């Protein structure tokens, strides 16, 4: 029991990550923040549209898409090796695309299958969601176990990922000056595109989330917005996949938005709060993980849940303290 919870060591837990370990932990923190901020932003819309469990479904079902993409590209890679093409960075970027494509396809297949089962038979939507994503996920796991040598994914890691294992190696360099590791750059790209997308389509997303009827009447293509959101969700999930895995990504999607919706009623403020939540939870999670020497992504989720509980206690409108006070006043 003693070595289960390591003693709190100020030097090791708080100081060292920022001095001697800054080289590694800085990138990990940045990566964690980018992932949870991106997921949190898009998660706000999932919560508003009551699609939290569709997020659950897509986060599971991108797996077979990725596995198939790996299988396909491993064929190409062999061919490439024979040709002697070993341009490191370009290869990394090139092999990113099929996986992204596989994930998008898998996301679309999930949405369509759920609709097929739900609309064409008497099975209810919740059961349809459950059937679809668990089948696809099982398919992905089987593919990975059968072709373990060809698919660059670890069966145990796909559930919880490991942010500490993100490859820091291929540095993107501009003019011979190393800027950042490639995965961080990719995530930064996805994050900025997300922010850009929300900024551009803010009004459309807002109206179609709160009042689809009005949105339709004002000429917004509600279905297109829906499918666009699904596709973007698949992209976000797949870029976060290696770091946080299929299940913890659900927490990343839902926790910031849920915390924000306890603290505010306005969508703009909620988006802001979820970014702050992302920052605090990745910071807290990093230190928690170093203290207990355990999974960083898991610790980030624990820290995020902790923040949610604090918000639940202190929320100005729905907080437990507030309700306790009200009950006392009435009684």
């Amino acid at each position, binding site marked *: 029991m003693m070595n289960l919870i390591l003693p709190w060591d100020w030097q090791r837990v708080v100081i060292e990550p920022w001095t001697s370990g800054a080289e590694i932990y800085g990138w990990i923190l940045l990566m964690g923040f980018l992932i949870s901020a991106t997921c949190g932003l898009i998660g706000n819309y999932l919560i508003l549209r009551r699609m*939290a469990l569709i997020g*659950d479904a897509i986060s599971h079902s991108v797996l077979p898409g990725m596995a198939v993409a790996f299988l396909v590209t491993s064929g190409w890679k062999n061919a490439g090796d024979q040709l002697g093409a070993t341009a490191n960075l370009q290869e990394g970027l090139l092999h990113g695309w099929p996986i992204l494509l596989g994930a998008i396809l898998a996301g679309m297949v999930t949405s369509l299958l759920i609709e097929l089962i739900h609309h064409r038979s008497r099975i209810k939507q*919740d059961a349809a969601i459950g059937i679809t994503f*668990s089948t696809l996920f099982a398919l992905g796991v089987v593919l990975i*176990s059968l072709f373990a040598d060809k698919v660059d994914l670890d069966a145990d890691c796909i559930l919880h990922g490991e942010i500490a294992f993100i490859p820091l190696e291929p540095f993107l360099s501009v003019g011979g000056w190393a800027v950042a590791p490639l995965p961080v750059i990719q995530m930064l790209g996805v994050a900025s595109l997300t922010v850009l997308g929300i900024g551009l389509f803010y009004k459309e997303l807002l109206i179609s989330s709160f009042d689809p009827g009005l949105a339709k009447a004002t000429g917004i293509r509600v279905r297109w917005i829906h499918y666009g959101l699904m596709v973007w969700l698949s992209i976000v999930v797949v870029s976060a996949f290696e770091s946080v895995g299929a299940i913890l990504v659900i927490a990343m*999607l*839902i926790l910031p938005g849920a915390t924000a919706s306890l603290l505010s009623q306005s969508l703009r403020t909620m988006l802001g709060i979820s970014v702050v939540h992302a920052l605090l939870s990745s910071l807290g999670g990093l230190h928690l993980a170093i203290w207990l020497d*355990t999974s960083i992504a*898991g610790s980030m989720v624990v820290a995020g849940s902790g923040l949610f509980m604090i918000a639940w206690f202190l929320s100005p409108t729905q907080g437990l303290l507030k309700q306790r006070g009200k009950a006392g006043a009435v009684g």
Partner: protein
Amino acid sequence: MRCGKPIPDTMLGRSIITILAVALNALMMLQLHAERIGQSVDIHPLDQLRRFVALEDPALRFALAGGLILGLLCGLMGSFLVVRKLSLVGDTISHAVLPGVAAGFLWNMEKDPVAILIGATTAGLLGMVLVTQLTRRTRLKEDTAMGMVLAGFFGIGICMMGMIQRLPTGSKSGIDKFLFGQAASLGWGDIQLMSVVGLLVLILILTFYKELLTTSFDPQFSGSIQIPVHTIEHGFMLLLAFAIVISLEAVGVVLVSAMLIIPAATAYLLCDRMHWMLFWACLIGMIAGAGGAFFSFLGQKLPTGPFMVLSASGLFALALAFAPRQGLVSRWWARHARSSRIRRENALKSIFHVLEKEHFAREGVTLIDLAHSRSQTLHETEKTCRELTRAGLASIAHEEKAVYLTPEGMRRAQTIVRNHRLWERYLTDAANYRPDHVHDDAEEIEHVLGEATVRMLERQLNFVDRDPHGKPIPSIQDISGQPKNRNPDGMTGYHTPS
């Protein structure tokens, strides 16, 4: 011809489905063989198959028993989940148990089934309580609350497992098997625990079947007949948590919910009564459980859970396509059969009309006359007539370009014309329609009037022999070719053809 109870057909359909399912499993087996032959050199798959069938290996016996018990339990509990629209509650509980599994392991630093059962059940129930509290006390909706509890508890569990793996005893504890399940790691103790809990769940469900049934379908009604709805629901959640926890080691945290939902949803497509649904769900669950144990045994250290889920999904896909009444293909086929029957009947009717116009002076109808009366091209008419010929209702005389009805075709034509005219008469006499408003309605109902309804209409209309437009209504004697019964009291001596 009564359209109430097609029991023999349904039974036939069910047995066909079962046979197909078995065949599909066999097929999948063969394909897997093919893959394994290419990959593994040391263990020949046929040897593995022989070992599986012979059940020599105790580990294999345990795995198979575990799969069967798991399938049975998940089928039982899942049926209630699916009809209560709580499918994703199973998902939430199954993910939320992970910290409990870790805590149960920490209790005495070994994989003690009872400690893990207690820890995991507590964690699962705690998760459910949290979901209820969140939805009741905040503005968050149920789906958000479930997703959050699911992933938050899972995160805590992952952290705890990371800490356990760091311990000297933890790294070889096999606790990581709880994620995807490894039926081969089941021991005698696990099987004992599974059987005890399984038996308990089975007995409780059978004892309180009526109460569960009423609360599932109509909670308000059950409240009004003094059934303690809340107690039943809490008890159900407890049983669900038990069922999930004992399935964990065989199928894994992630895919337990699939074993709850998929067999039950498959059964939901196959039947309409709850007890039959329970039966089918258990059967499909057990097939899937055994299938998963088998497939994972074919390879080395393949996880069991995904194979169980894929077996279940295969059966679900079959049911979705071919279920006797609900299947997509069966429904398409039924629609197709109905529309081609209607097409044939309309063609017969037109032939009859042409014959009638000529006062049955000739036996056949020329294709040109028929095409004219149906406002079709000659080509279309010929195609329709060929269809009739294939169904044995008519024959085409090619040299004179005419079509002759067979006796059966004549009978069917008369039946349909009778239905049409009788219904027109009914609408004018009994429902006070104007005679020029009745044709379109009769045009549709003529294809679905059953013999029993026709008898009733005839009696009610006092055996009229003319329709509102003055045309004769063929009687049963015309149709069956019997001599007219001139019974003065109006009884016609109909017998209902079976």
